[in-house]
């Protein structure tokens, strides 16, 4: 009996952090969905495929040295990337870096910086939700 209780407690302790990080990602996606619907009533959900396209497309609106998200993040979300100043960046895929996208302020800060660098403008809630869905699916 005590062993069973201990096992259950251990399991719960293990699952709890997992559950809460998934929950904070879902919450963030939910907020982007609300904003996306407000921007366009035709909004019908996020698409990981569109997210992948955004991730690898080369844009002309941002800085010349960083035309795409993949200029710093690796071509594959499953690989580590590198900044222009040489700092290594952990893989973007949630499966490889489980702590990703669990701090909404951090996510928003980097969307703002990186979308400016790459597209020369902020990303829309639709783009953010698509991109995030892609990374969660990886």
């Amino acid at each position, binding site marked *: 009996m005590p062993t069973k209780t201990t096992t259950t407690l251990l399991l719960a302790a293990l699952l709890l952090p997992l559950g809460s990080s998934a929950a904070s990602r879902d919450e963030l996606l939910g907020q982007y969905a609300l904003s996306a619907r407000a921007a366009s009533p035709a909004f019908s959900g996020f698409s990981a495929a569109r997210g992948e396209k955004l991730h690898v497309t080369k844009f002309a609106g941002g800085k010349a040295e960083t035309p795409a998200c993949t200029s710093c993040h690796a071509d594959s979300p499953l690989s580590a990337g590198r*900044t*222009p*100043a*040489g*700092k290594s*960046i952990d893989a973007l895929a949630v499966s490889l870096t489980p702590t990703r996208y669990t701090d909404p302020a951090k996510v928003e800060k980097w969307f*703002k*910086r990186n979308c400016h660098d790459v597209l020369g403008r902020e990303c829309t809630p639709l783009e953010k939700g698509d991109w995030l869905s892609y990374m969660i699916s990886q």
Partner: protein
Amino acid sequence: MKAIALKIPFRPIALGLVVLLFSGVLLERAQAGGGHFFPPVTDPLVREECGSCHLAYAPSMLPKSSWTRMMGELKNHFGDDASVDAAKTERITRYLNANAADSGGQRNGGKLLRGVSMENAPLRITELPRWVSEHRKISTAEWKSKKVGSKANCVACHVDAERGYYDE
């Protein structure tokens, strides 16, 4: 006589002596700052906000005037937007200034800053005369190589820079 001599474990003793000597040297360096050690950033907030795009540079490599100036222009930080909210900006500025080259007891930074006026507020470590002379032997090809890419990429050559050591 011979048999006794053979029983003495010379190897472990010698090894132990070498280890002792070596750690003594390291300790000395860490304490007296024998040229290679620049205490790394320990504050988690500064590591997070100043260590994602590049190494979180050791605060003792620049004077207070530099950090204060840099923290006031984070919106345009070498072409990047590195800005953070006002409360975080203040906390980071305080940490950098408290550990700056001219904050007292930071003799290493003092060495790197020889010949630089503390009021001049240089923004680049890589443009300090002393840094330039330490790196004069490195060729343009090496700076531009894929492994290095930028002078600011200290870790490419100083593998222990994250821990504050800048020997090769």
